[in-house]
């Protein structure tokens, strides 16, 4: 064997061995403990870093999960129950199953129903309009239509419908992270329980004015007449401040309230068409036609989007 090869082997091996020895002792001497579970947990998180959990990024959430004893308050809305149960498995902690949620827009005040009385000329964001009187319409509670919710959505799950000037949620894309709920200055968006086949019934209005004022501002406003409360068999509806609210947990999707609402402010979405009632007075049918069609359109829109998505 030539000397070159010998030198090569000796020097490189020596360097390698020395490096290994030094590193080993350094590692022993300067050991800093870091919980290895943090990495494990982080690996299982969706890495969207959306902040929906309330922590800065997935790593921060992972640390919080490892540190806290009870993780039932911590929830990753993007990963959902699957992720949380995996995390719980790693940490050996119990996690409650939560109902999947989806964002709904509680305003139907398209220009057709809610006349514009002013014109707004300022920075194009809802937060600023909401500080200015009632915005462009006489209803100060409703949607301003400038799309703050669309802006904040990281999942492209909301878009503005150009005709109704209202936001539309794409159910399949929505992860219920709650960013839009926080962004809406008028608290129009609510996270509601996701039902079978994306069926939904909810009061699509947040107007807390008295009936007359509300009605004057918007055709489809909830006027707080309590007709729905009377017809609900499950005590799922309450009226407060002249505004009805359907408890998503108690509601059994019987659709009775939808029929009795005089202003059609309760929406039913993704239901099969109703059987036509034979004995309906002509006038009432006409009065109902417009809103009924509009919800129908909404349904169609949703279907189209679902197919695309």
């Amino acid at each position, binding site marked *: 064997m030539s000397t070159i090869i010998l030198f090569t082997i000796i020097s490189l091996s020596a360097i390698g061995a020395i490096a290994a020895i030094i590193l080993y002792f350094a590692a022993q001497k300067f050991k800093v403990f870091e919980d290895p579970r943090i990495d494990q947990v982080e690996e299982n998180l969706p890495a969207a870093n959306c902040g929906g959990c309330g922590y800065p990024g997935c790593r921060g959430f992972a640390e919080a999960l490892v540190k806290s004893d009870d993780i039932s308050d911590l929830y990753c809305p993007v990963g959902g129950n699957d992720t949380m149960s995996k995390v719980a498995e790693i940490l050996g902690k119990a996690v409650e199953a939560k109902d999947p949620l989806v964002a709904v827009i509680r305003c139907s005040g398209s220009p057709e129903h809610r006349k514009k009385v002013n014109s707004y000329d300022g920075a194009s964001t809802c937060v*600023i309009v909401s500080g200015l009187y009632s915005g462009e319409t006489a209803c100060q509670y409703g949607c301003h239509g400038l799309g703050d919710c669309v802006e904040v959505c990281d999942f492209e799950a909301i878009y503005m419908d150009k005709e109704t000037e209202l936001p539309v949620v794409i159910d399949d894309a929505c992860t219920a992270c709650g960013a839009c709920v926080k962004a809406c200055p008028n608290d129009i968006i609510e996270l509601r329980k996701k039902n079978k086949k994306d069926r939904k019934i909810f009061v699509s209005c947040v107007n807390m004015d008295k009936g007359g004022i509300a009605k004057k501002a918007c055709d489809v406003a909830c006027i707080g007449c309590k007709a729905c409360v009377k017809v609900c068999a499950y005590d799922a509806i309450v009226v407060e401040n002249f505004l009805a609210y359907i408890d998503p947990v108690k509601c059994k999707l019987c659709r009775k309230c939808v029929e009795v609402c005089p202003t059609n402010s309760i929406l039913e979405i993704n239901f099969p068409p109703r059987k036509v009632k034979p004995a309906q007075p002509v006038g009432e049918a006409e009065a109902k036609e417009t809103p009924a069609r509009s919800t129908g359109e909404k349904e169609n829109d949703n279907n189209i989007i679902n197919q695309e998505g």
Partner: protein
Amino acid sequence: MLKTFPKGGVHPAEGKYSANNAIETLPLPKTVSIPIAQHIGAPSKPVVDKGDKVKVGDKIAESAGFVSANIHSSVSGTVVKIDNVMDSTGYKRPCVIIDVEGDEWNESIDRSTDLKKEISLTDKEIINKINESGIVGLGGATFPSHVKLSVPDGKKIDVLIINGVECEPYLTSDHRLMLEKAEEMLIGIQILMKALNVNVALIGVENNKPDAISNLQNIVKDYPGIEVHALKVQYPQGGEKQLIKALINREVPSGGLPLDVGAVVHNVGTALAVYEAVQKNKPLFERVVTLTGKSVKKPSNFMVRIGTPVSNLVEAAGGLPEDTGKIINGGPMMGKAVNSLEIPVVKGTSGILIMPAELSKRKKESNCIRCAKCVSVCPQGLEPYLLNKLALLEKNDKLEAGGVMDCIECGSCSYTCPAGLPLLDYIRLGKSRVSQIIRSRKQ
């Protein structure tokens, strides 16, 4: 060289159409809606009920804390109801609604027009009287005046500054007061000086009101310790901090109050109200309101009872012009655009400006070209372009570090921006977010 503040500022077209029109007393309205929250601080508590009879000057709502103010009836008549009525902020707020019947004043009020010069009350009594009379800052900020006069222990006040600048374009109510009620105002200033125990009072007036300045300078000779200073016409000369800097060259520290540099600032209107309250026992229930605008037939200055609907003023000034595009409560730089004429005049209403449609649209927005004009006009030495961006991107910590809380919302940046960007809109938004954060941090 005229005195002025050293940094920033703009000079918008003045448009003082109503400067030469003497104050007229507006006829009594049929009903008034008097909001119970007309000042900064806690809303007052109503002390009248539906059906009660009230006289002019009767207290109808009581101060609900130290930073709050009494509210008095501005008319005589019957309380119809206490209901939510939209006020100038656009929100429906509780108002006492009174049907006007005659004009019967509370007996204790001295209705004579004689000048009453000698001040008989002590400093404490003066402050009490002011508190009792519900006087708030009439320049627009509506901060309860007695609070400003109650100097906390350890603070030494050596100068009273009277704000007669009226730097907002179009508005002339203070201007007319300084011409027509100068004598009363000066006595009011003396009362304030006594309440504060100071020997010096400086009145700052912008140099575009030479008649008011010479009028005051003539009379002020009889009032020792009071000086009148003409100031350069530069917006926002009337900003409290800018005025102090211009007159006595002291800089109110960031986040601080004028108290911190030994000064207290009051508006000329407030001084007059103080005179009337202390010498004539007349609570604050009326004020001068300018109604003006390019297309307004008769730009006027009215003496108006609080609670009068704005529509009455418009009527008296010749009706709403055809081309109305915007109705502004206050001046064009800091006033609020309102969407109804049915809002009531309140203590802080210094003017109603009616803008023609052609002037009420903003410039078309384009990209920021980083021309730094906003930086150079900012009287507070801030960087509006940056704050605007940070507010848009919701970078609240950087906003706070960037001094967003120092913004006085004077609007100079938006006014000057060649790209027509709504700088102040976003800065204001960022400011409210940051102040929320600061508040939650304190808790």
